[in-house]
């Protein structure tokens, strides 16, 4: 008997019990739907994070104080004994031939005040190269320059949000004075609008010369150092060079750690991959439950149709014909559930994409294949046992069954 015949018999049976079939498919429908949705969302968030990381600049290195032999990127440890200083930045600028720019970063926060308006913002002490290392674009004025850093100038570059909040729609903030923690700073530039990254407003930042930031926060160290390799292929030699040069300058002690952007991306990838995997695993539990539902209904169906099985055997159905009849029915039911779940997942993803246009959420071909594969597998696994039970019935007993 051909597979087509078995399919046709399965559809006869499904047509005979449409409500029951639909209820049976619900388990698989919900299972496939949740797998599709959660895995799809996980992938989308990962893609979004990686895209954002790429937007931060390319081929970047970050040098943190303190040594770490293990893999993985961690924020710099604040309590490290030997901290990084401006001297380390100068050494790298002078001797880092593989590097295409170095900038100190002195992180802090402070109260900005213009007249009677106050706002707490993150203040970042930087060098002049920071602007191109991080792909920042200037809207008006200029960025912090070498003179600012060398002469500890009270210059500040602010983002659009700060402009909006502190100056409103008044005339240009350029040349105006902002008090940062009671110290007057002159606005020399405004960055172009960058929007939010990970929900963090990139236009709510104030940049000051690293040296002035050290004064402001009363520190002698830098939080970390940002550097850039010349291109993709020189990232590894650049890391080696940074290690050599810095260790040499610090008396042979390599008490710092160099991370590349790839390390950070790897970490994000790993975290998101694990997250997606667990989401998928949790969703798979509902698939399992769906499979058990199909098995249960198929067992009932075999019992109910014992006589039908006997008649089919009497008129010439072989063992394998009965086996396939029930197996194909289970697979078809499961597949219908899977396809419905896929459709529902597709619609939901479109809705999510509509309300979250930033999130690159999409139904990938591999997820479609996965959904179909899962529902096929669930159908086969849940159908085998009932189908064997049906096929193993003795024709004489089956015909006598009341």
């Amino acid at each position, binding site marked *: 008997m051909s597979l087509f015949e078995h399919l046709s018999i399965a559809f*006869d049976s499904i047509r005979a019990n449409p409500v029951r079939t639909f209820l049976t498919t619900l388990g698989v429908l919900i299972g496939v739907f949740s797998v599709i949705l959660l895995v799809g969302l996980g992938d989308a968030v990962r893609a979004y994070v990686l895209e954002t990381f790429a937007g931060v600049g390319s081929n970047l290195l970050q040098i943190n104080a303190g040594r770490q032999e293990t893999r993985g990127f961690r924020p710099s440890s604040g309590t490290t004994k030997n901290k990084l200083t401006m001297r380390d930045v100068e050494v790298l600028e002078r001797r880092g031939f593989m590097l295409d720019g170095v900038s100190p970063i002195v992180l802090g926060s402070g109260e900005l005040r213009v007249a009677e308006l106050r706002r707490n913002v993150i203040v970042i002490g930087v060098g002049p190269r920071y602007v191109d290392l991080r792909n920042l674009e200037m809207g008006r004025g200029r960025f912090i320059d070498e003179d600012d850093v060398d002469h500890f100038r009270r210059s500040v570059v602010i983002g659009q949000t700060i402009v909006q909040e502190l100056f409103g729609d008044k005339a240009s903030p350029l040349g105006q004075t902002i008090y940062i923690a009671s110290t007057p700073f002159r606005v020399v530039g405004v960055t172009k609008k960058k929007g939010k990254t990970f929900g963090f407003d990139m236009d709510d930042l104030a940049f000051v010369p690293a040296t002035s930031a050290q004064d402001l926060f009363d520190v002698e160290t830098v939080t970390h150092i940002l550097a850039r390799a010349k291109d993709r292929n020189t990232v590894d030699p650049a890391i080696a060079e940074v290690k050599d040069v810095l260790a040499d300058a610090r008396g042979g002690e390599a008490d710092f750690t160099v991370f590349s952007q790839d390390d950070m991306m790897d970490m994000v990838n790993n975290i998101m991959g694990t997250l997606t995997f667990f989401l998928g695993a949790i969703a798979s539990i509902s698939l399992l439950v769906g499979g058990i539902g199909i098995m249960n209904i198929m067992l009932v169906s075999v019992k109910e149709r014992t006589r039908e099985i006997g*008649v*089919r055997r*009497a*008129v*010439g159905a072989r*063992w394998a014909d009965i086996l396939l009849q029930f197996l194909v029915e289970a697979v078809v039911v499961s597949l219908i559930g899977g396809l419905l779940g896929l459709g529902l997942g597709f619609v939901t993803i479109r809705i999510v994409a509509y309300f979250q246009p930033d999130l690159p959420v999409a139904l990938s071909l591999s997820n479609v294949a996965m959904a179909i594969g899962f529902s096929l597998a669930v159908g086969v696994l849940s159908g085998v046992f009932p189908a064997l039970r049906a096929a193993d019935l003795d024709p*004489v007993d089956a*015909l006598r069954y009341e």
Partner: protein
Amino acid sequence: MSTPVIALSGASRVYEMGAERIEALRGVDLEVASGEFLAIVGPSGSGKSTLMNVIGCLDRPTGGAYAIDGIDVRDLDDDALADLRNKKIGFVFQSFNLLPRQTAIDNVSLPLRYAGVSRRERRRAAEAALARVDLADRMDHRPDQLSGGQKQRVAIARALVTNPSLLLADEPTGALDQKTGNEIIALFERLNADAGVTVLIVTHDREVAQKTKRTITIVDGRIASDEANVEVSA
């Protein structure tokens, strides 16, 4: 002399249930030639159901030999037995055993599906079989839209559709009233007389058996009598 449709020699069927041994058939010798119209009668527990299952290739004798159309069933595996049922035997049951959600024509086509016959050919053969039982106008009715007699005629059409060597009917009138039962027996008679179909009716009803040409009585797993019926009248 042509090959008999049924050739049982010393056929026995023993059921082993734990320590218990039940001998349902104790050495049955029986030959039925092509074109016969006969009945097997016997009280319940006499072994007539077992004999019918053996003749219908649903079961195999545990001793002795059985050949249908000269084919010895002892050498056949489960699949070959299924094929033999499909080609050689048409079953008619007491409770019709039609597939409830399918039309008459789909029910009649069922054996042809397992024979691997094409859809078009199936339809043609099923229509012809339904015409033979005077149900050409009920082809697209489902069993719940048919009377008991009509259902049994659909079942007979299903049994005829493969042109089997043997029509094996198990209490075919058991679920029908007297009049309809008589009509069904008359239909068997006609099929036998006009088309030479070999018909074997298994029944506990002597009156039904009397309408065939030969009555075999089974008692206690053995053939107690095998006699020709004198007069057949409707």
